[in-house]
């Protein structure tokens, strides 16, 4: 009996290692950078673990307000209400910039849709245009992919295209969550349009140019850098003012040369 108790207590007592856990929560756009940086940081500081999870910018900001995470990730500015709750408690640090690309399925791109104006995109999302034919493409209904209201990408996109960050999209036909989920819906369809960070573009998911003042501008890092692409944004991490030294070190690492190399590798524009 004694042996059993002893073995059980051994099994149950979790080894207490003197290490620190940093929970990073939020935008799935920022997630790849922080996640890869976390692995690199852990290699340098074995006693620090950065635990990364997604959920969206709104989730990250909510977690900082509630104090359930040490690091928030957001792919948009904080709203005034959020700012009021966060005020004085959190530093908002931009670690990279990217473009919110207007993406279409490969088939749509091949059928001749290479560029859309902001007004055309707005018409699609408001439900005024429902067929690719009206925009010069093939005769097919448009699969309009909207995002969950909490997603930073949606805020930025809706603000640039529809005028306000929480504008309704009456033309939407499906709601997606993370960037990965949206990417998979676009690549599986032949008629989809959606919004994605430029790092998620690939052969099956093509970014169309956005027409500004008669000029078609591709969603590339270069156009984010020179400021011509209209739907660009900063990628933020939120750091509590009373954060631990290791958490600060990790943010410093994100801003360092090595951290910014990861930013570049993922496909975003470094801050320097």
């Amino acid at each position: 009996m004694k042996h059993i108790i002893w073995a059980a207590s051994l099994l149950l007592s979790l080894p207490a290692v003197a290490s620190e856990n940093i929970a990073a929560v939020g935008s799935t756009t920022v997630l790849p950078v922080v996640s890869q940086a976390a692995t690199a940081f852990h290699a340098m500081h074995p006693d620090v673990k950065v635990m990364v999870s997604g959920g969206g910018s709104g989730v990250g900001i909510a977690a900082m307000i509630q104090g359930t995470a040490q690091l928030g990730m957001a792919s948009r500015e904080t709203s005034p209400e959020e700012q009021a709750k966060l005020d004085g408690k959190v530093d908002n640090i931009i670690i990279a910039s990217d473009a919110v690309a207007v993406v279409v399925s490969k088939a749509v791109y091949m059928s001749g849709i290479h560029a859309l104006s902001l007004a055309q995109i707005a018409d699609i999302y408001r439900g005024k245009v429902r067929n690719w034919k009206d925009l010069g493409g093939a005769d097919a209904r448009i699969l309009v992919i909207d995002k969950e209201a909490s997603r930073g990408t949606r805020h930025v996109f809706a603000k640039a295209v529809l005028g306000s960050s929480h504008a309704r999209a009456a033309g939407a036909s499906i709601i997606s969550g993370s960037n990965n989920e949206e990417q998979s819906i676009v690549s599986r369809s032949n008629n989809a349009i959606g919004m994605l960070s430029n790092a998620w573009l690939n052969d099956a998911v093509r970014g169309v140019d956005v027409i500004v003042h008669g000029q078609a501008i591709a969603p590339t890092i270069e156009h984010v850098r020179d400021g011509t692409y209209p739907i660009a944004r900063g990628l933020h991490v939120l750091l509590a003012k009373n954060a631990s030294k290791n958490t600060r070190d990790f943010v410093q690492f994100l801003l360092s040369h090595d951290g910014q190399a990861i930013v570049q590798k993922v496909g975003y524009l470094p801050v320097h």
Partner: protein
Amino acid sequence: MMVRRLCKKWVIYPFIKHKVRHFLNPLKIFVALGCVSAVLSVLVLLGFLIQSSLPFWQAFGIQVLWGDAWYPYESLFGFLPAIVGTVWALLIAMIIALPCGLAAAIVSSEMMSETWRNLVRVGMEILAGIPSVVYGLIGLWLLLPFLQHSLDLLTGHNLLAAGMILSLMILPTIMVMSQDALQAISEEQRESAMNLGVDWQQRLFRVLLPQAWPGIRSGILLALGRALGETMAVMLVVGSMDRLPEPFYNILEPAQTLTSRIGREMGEASFGSLHFSALMGCGLILAVMAMGLSLLAQHRSLIR
């Protein structure tokens, strides 16, 4: 010492029956502690569910149940699209799973040898244990592309897909429960039916099925309860579009269910906000519906 005496008087005494009063009987203390902690934990959990959805009900009243606009950022909380979606998903699941499951139960219970019957049963019990997220994976990667191509849809995410996945999940429940009910019919009753000279088909519909009906009915209600609360699989395939199907029988467009809404929006709603409390409201509706189904399933004499 004082504390111990108080404990004896107020915590342990009332629990001990007057006949056997062993003071501080360890067995009784153990049992009492267990019962109290079970009751407490369940009450606390469900109590807080009600408590935290209260601000929402106070602010909007019961009419949210038939409001059709859900825009949390505009403080519009209409539950109707999700409720309609849930009901559709359940209905589709039942339409597929009930005939199949019942037929499978009849085949395995009335037409198979004992060895095969046991084998099928073990298989079904194992299938009932497959986690829902795995069904979601199958739905996402097998069912959605299939639906999209075969029905030439804009997207495979829709209520039909959710219903089909759910039907796969509740099939074992319906089958096992129906099989149990059929097997429970005694040999005498079977034989007396044989002696009446009715053929196999008549025996099935006049004797066996009516006899087994209460058991089958609880099986159906249990399965409905399971389908109602299923989250992961539904969330992955339903499309999460908060809009009433148009027209109302259009099950080939993305829609929303109560569970998928909770799953999608739980993370973003900050604790204490109206949105959070609205989602708790969704949870409360789910709990009430599920408890209703469970009570119906237990109330055997209700329909006969």
